[in-house]
């Protein structure tokens, strides 16, 4: 029963991580590509970490909570890096499928 639960979690995690990376290859412009790896991976890695926490809690008896930390650090770093990438892209006026914001103050100053 445990094995079954663990395999479901790991497979779900793997599928979502894969779809996230697939998005990186399939989507068309810089900004939409940002979405794949930051998002699908949130749930994907989450599932893998829950599986890991369960496995080690069952194997060693007691509770393994290391994984909570991994997800915490991931939740802090991944949006910050996505934000910085998007900001740098706006700064350089990277081409986008969506119309770039035009109002003054809505974008960083244009890179010369």
């Amino acid at each position, binding site marked *: 029963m445990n094995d079954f639960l663990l395999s479901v979690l790991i497979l779900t995690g793997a599928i*979502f991580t894969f*779809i*996230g990376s*697939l*998005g990186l290859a*399939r*989507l*068309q*412009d810089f*900004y*939409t590509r*940002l*979405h*794949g790896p*930051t*998002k*699908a991976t*949130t*749930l*994907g890695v*989450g599932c893998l970490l829950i599986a890991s926490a369960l496995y080690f809690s069952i194997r060693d008896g007691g509770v*393994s*909570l*290391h994984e*909570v*930390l991994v997800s*915490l650090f991931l*939740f*802090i770093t*991944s*949006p*910050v890096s*996505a*934000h910085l990438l*998007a*900001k740098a*892209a*706006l700064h350089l006026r990277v081409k*986008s*499928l*969506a*119309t*770039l*914001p035009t*109002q003054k*103050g*809505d*974008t*960083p100053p244009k890179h010369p």
Partner: protein
Amino acid sequence: MKRLLPHPVLTVTLTILWLLLVNQFSAGQVILGALLGWLIPFSTTRFWPDPIRIHQPLALMRYFVVFMYDIVLGSFQVAYMILRGPSHLRPAFIRIPLVLKTDLAISLLANTISLTPGTVSAWLSEDRRTLIVHTLDTGDAEALVADIKQRYEAPLKRIFEGSE
């Protein structure tokens, strides 16, 4: 009291973080964690000019549950969008006018927007009143803005800035 313990919230958080890091719960580790949780805010006091105040701890828990639910639901939507193909997407930049004022609340809102699937916060306008967000697939931009404001911004305001 305020001089001796400048950031009680931070101290408790760091203690819990330490206990998770060593992955064991014993009196010695609790004391060590508390010591670190007390010392670190002192040495980083310049990063925390304003005291962190949580007005409604219960609302924070509720916010966390809503956040988790949105991540799970949104991940399925984004996975579907990626598999369906890029030709069906309607990416857009939207402007979210902010009512939040404190740094912590704004950065938490931006992080939440980036973590919940389908949206990435891209730029905070210089006057810190507008957040520019890139969305993957938007039919109705105004509805999305209203949704984000009501779902995330309003609770964050209540939790960190108190109701005025």
